[in-house]
């Protein structure tokens, strides 16, 4: 079932088109990766999906059971002020606001949900700690928990592993993958081509001139995907083998 459907989408920035005529269908439960060079319009597309930017032409349609405000967004690391005084719990709870309606304060159900997502992501112990004193990996977990308070359907992550060390990166990917297996649709902008090859089910490749959308296997075989995977991992061959050996391990 299509969860989000984009048709002939054109987006522009300062009257210059950054994305032209892009169409894709996002299936429920998918792990959808958006890749492309800097300036290829990934961030603009995210803004459009979140409803923060109006398309010049084309449409973005959502499934009946999904409203646009029910997308759990995890912004780029740099978008949150470093010195902000806020406890982990305050940050996570703020994700519940979209279910508050016009009530000024949080109700029990929302506090319960915040506690549950904190438990799920293993940050209950640091609930009272200040957000600004956390490590990069802990911060991402907190922002994930906040996003999960806002949604139980779709997570949209903008370069979530930027600036994280390899161990923490791996942990975070595992968490995201677990959530995907629980049925949450993942939309992820990524520069990390290895993770795309490993986890993605669908790939949307944006480029100034053209774009590609399809399953990860189709992407590997396509010209655009082939050159991108090759350029960024330097040796696609090795990469394939690496993947295969891992598949064997899991079997």
């Amino acid at each position: 079932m299509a969860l989000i459907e984009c048709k002939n989408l054109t987006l522009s920035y300062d009257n210059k088109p950054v994305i032209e005529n892009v169409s894709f269908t996002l299936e429920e439960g998918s792990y959808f990766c958006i890749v492309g060079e800097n300036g290829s319009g990934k961030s603009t597309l995210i803004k459009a999906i979140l409803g923060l930017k109006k398309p010049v032409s084309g449409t973005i349609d959502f499934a009946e059971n999904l409203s646009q405000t029910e997308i759990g967004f995890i912004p780029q690391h740099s978008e949150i002020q470093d010195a902000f005084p806020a406890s982990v719990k305050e940050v996570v709870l703020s994700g519940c606001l979209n279910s508050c309606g016009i009530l000024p304060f949080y109700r029990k159900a929302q506090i319960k949900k915040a506690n549950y997502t904190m438990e799920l992501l293993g940050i209950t112990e640091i609930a009272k700690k200040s957000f600004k004193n956390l490590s990069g990996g802990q911060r991402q977990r907190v922002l994930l928990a906040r996003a999960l308070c806002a949604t139980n359907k779709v997570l949209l992550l903008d370069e979530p592993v930027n600036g994280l060390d390899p161990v923490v990166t791996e942990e975070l990917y595992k968490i995201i993958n677990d959530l995907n297996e629980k049925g949450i649709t993942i939309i992820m902008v990524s520069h990390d081509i290895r993770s795309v090859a490993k986890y993605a089910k669908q790939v949307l490749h944006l480029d100034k001139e053209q774009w590609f959308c399809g399953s990860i296997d189709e992407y590997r075989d396509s010209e655009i995907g082939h050159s991108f995977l090759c350029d960024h991992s330097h040796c696609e061959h090795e990469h394939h083998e690496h993947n295969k050996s891992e598949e064997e391990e899991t079997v």
Partner: protein
Amino acid sequence: MNALLEMLSFPFMTRALIAGSLIALSAALLGVTLVLKRYSMIGDGLSHVGFGAMAVAALLNVAPLVVAIPVVVIAAFILLRFQNQAKLRGDTAIAVISTGFLAVGVILIHFSKGGNVDLMNYMFGSILALREIDVWTGIVLSVIVTAAFILLYNRIFAITFDETFAKATGIRTGFYNTVLAILTAITIVLGMRLMGALLISGLIIFPAITAMNLFRSFKKVVVTSGIVAVVSVVSGLIVSYFFGIPTGAGIVCINVTLLILSALISRIIKKD
């Protein structure tokens, strides 16, 4: 003790204490958000606009608040617009608008009375300038500001911490930013009579930074900021009464002292 009672027997002192504390409370609550959103200079800019507006009111011989509140609210709208625009940067816009209004205000005051006393009152504040009507509007409006802040507390936190996320989850950030601008404008106009156009932004900035030195959660910072503001206004008024120093400057000096103390305390705690 007797001296304190004697101080309270002056009606202008009790008025200043009540109105001052309430205005300081509103300013400090809003100040936390303004400082964190990097809007702290808006307070300064708006107070200069308020100065110009009050000068117009003096020239036309109408009640200062009637002119100043609408003008400052409009200025707040314009300044917030500029914050989100790339062409003319926010801080530049503030400098342009505030200096312009300040200059116009000075000229108008020169023509309206020709004396220096009023100019000094507007620039640096005066508790003697607070009339009963000012006190009542001050009380009513600052109660409204504080109540609005408490009711919108969770939303204000969300748009201060991460406006993009808040907007994406359907919070009307534009609306709440506008509400914040209006509340800020009202608070500044009210505070100007007591603190003066040049010192009112102190009431907005200092308590927030002092509280941020001491605490790490938003709620604690907001509550502490309010307490610091009230304490500094009350002690500032008392000090200025006994030593005969200008009130606004006295309050700001107490704020500076508290800020330095909080910075020292946070250093000592960090070393542990």
